């Protein structure tokens, strides 16, 4: 029944050791998002894919990269995690057209919690 699935749910990595988080969706939504959420804070958008078009937020560090090989999958790569990158990473999807862009309902996965040692 799960529609947006994130793996792994919990990831522990060492300082500077690359990590990849994955997201898959069964909704066939055209937009996929990655958010970073630190403790007791609102989710912060890192980037999103509108179909195959990649849209990076201006303040997203270069350390964060993303790939979307097909409609169903999206990956978040953190090239050299620092202690400040420890957070919950949330994947979300939406079916958005420019006509209905304002009705931008987001469907979230359960999140991947990253710990950096």
């Amino acid at each position: 029944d799960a529609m947006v699935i994130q793996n792994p749910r919990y990831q522990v990595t060492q300082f500077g050791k690359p990590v990849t988080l994955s997201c898959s969706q069964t909704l066939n939504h055209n937009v996929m998002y990655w958010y970073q959420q630190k403790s007791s804070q609102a989710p912060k958008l890192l980037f999103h894919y509108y179909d195959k078009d990649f849209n990076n937020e201006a303040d997203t560090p270069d350390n964060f990269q993303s790939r979307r090989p097909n409609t169903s999958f999206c990956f978040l790569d953190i090239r050299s995690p620092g202690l400040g990158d420890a957070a919950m990473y949330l994947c979300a999807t939406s079916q958005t057209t420019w006509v209905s862009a304002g009705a931008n309902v987001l469907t979230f996965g359960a999140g991947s919690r990253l710990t950096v040692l």
Partner: protein
Amino acid sequence: AQSVTQLDSHVSVSEGTPVLLRCNYSSSYSPSLFWYVQHPNKGLQLLLKYTSAATLVKGINGFEAEFKKSETSFHLTKPSAHMSDAAEYFCVVSSNAGKSTFGDGTTLTVKP
């Protein structure tokens, strides 16, 4: 430009009493507004949305919200709190540019 202000970072109520979580927004366009709930270590779940239809919007789990353009508010209410309502609540505004802006969240505590 758009922004969202959740007026209370923490709200505490007793089980069975009403819940009010306050949200004010700013938007240059006719906004769409949403409330999401997040339980500990979980993703966000849509509670309800306003997209320029009826101003009183009913959502899941007995929650509702009223869009008041004159007050630029979209407060979330529930007549009777349940222990399972304890969670983090986010008010979100979305514009025709398709970008969602989150409020800082309100932590709801429900006391037995």
